Each structure stands twice: as structure tokens, then as C-alpha cells.
């Protein structure tokens, strides 16, 4: 156990906490996705990086290092698919939304 990986674990868990709080607090599905994708993905990437620092260039460390870009690409594509799907399914934006340029594409 070295101290850098401990710090990375704690930072990762804290970002996961912020992401889940955002999931509960924010008003509509689009804003929830904002907090969810960014905070939770980077928190988990930080945890995996801590695992890589702890184990170095062994089998476990390399697997953790490969999992980081994998998690990054899959979670961004999933967030994109979810937000597009919920717009197409007709879920309304929040009342205080200021602009919506996407509306004219969906007549």
C-alpha cells in the first residue's frame, strides 16, 4: 500500500459521492446525466489508476490500465445514447431551460 494510491482511492470515492448526490438533487434527466457521467466516470477512473500505481506493471496493473480507456469510451457513448433517446421519447426539458436549438430538427 503506498500513499499515492490511497489518495487516489479517496479522491475517486469522493467524486463518486458527488455524482450520486447530483443524481438525487438535480431537477431533470438531462442535468442528472451531466453530473452522473462526469463525476462517476472520473471517480472510477481514479480508483483504477490507484490500483495501477499500487500493483505496478504486473497482470493486475496492466488490466486496470486497459480498463480506463474502455470505461471512458463506453460511458460517454452510453450517456450520449441515453440523452438522445430520452429527447426522442419526448421527455420534457426542465422549466427553466433557456435555449433549445435541437427542437427544429425534431418536427
Amino acid at each position, binding site marked *: 500500500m503506498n500513499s499515492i494510491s490511497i489518495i487516489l482511492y479517496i479522491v475517486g470515492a469522493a467524486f463518486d459521492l458527488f455524482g450520486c448526490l447530483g443524481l438525487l438533487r438535480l431537477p431533470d*434527466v438531462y442535468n442528472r446525466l451531466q453530473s452522473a457521467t462526469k463525476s462517476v466516470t472520473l471517480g472510477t477512473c481514479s480508483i483504477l489508476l490507484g490500483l495501477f500505481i499500487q500493483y505496478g506493471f504486473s497482470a493486475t496493473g496492466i488490466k486496470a490500465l486497459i*480498463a480506463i480507456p474502455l470505461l471512458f469510451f463506453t460511458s460517454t457513448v452510453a450517456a450520449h445514447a441515453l440523452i438522445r433517446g430520452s429527447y426522442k421519447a419526448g421527455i420534457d426539458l426542465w422549466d427553466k431551460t433557456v435555449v433549445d436549438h435541437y427542437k427544429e430538427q425534431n418536427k
Partner: protein
Amino acid sequence: MIDILLYILMGLSFLCFLRVIMGPSVADRMVAIDIFGILVVGICVFLAIKTQRLFLIDVAIAWILISFIGTITLAKYLTRKKLDE
């Protein structure tokens, strides 16, 4: 130390289930399930350190892929159908 972080992540997945129960629309529930899928990866990593069973990293990688496919399928379902709830 690792124990406390493990319990924190487990508590966070209960927060996700709270959103699944509360969520006013279908999309909210899907977002919560997606987040839960990412949190499980962190839980796998902490369990692997705690119990020294390092094959759990492979489980985490497989979980990333399966959760991705599940989310894409649900999003496709959202796109095709009008859901009112």
C-alpha cells in the same frame, strides 16, 4: 481504510436504487442503472484489494462491457417508442 471506502460505495449504490424507485420517468431509471453499472466497477476493485482475489479485475472489465450493451439496448428502446408515464 479500504473497508470504509467499500461501505461508502455500497451506500452510493443504494442511493442509485433510491433514484430507480423515485424516478418520475423511465429515462431517470435508466440513468440510475447506468450509474450503478459504473459504481460496481469501483466495488470490484476495492473487493479485489481487500480479499486479495485479483481475478475480480477481470469481472470488472466484463461488467463494463455488459453494462454498456445493456444501456445501449435500453436507449434504443427509448428512441423507437413513445413512452408516457
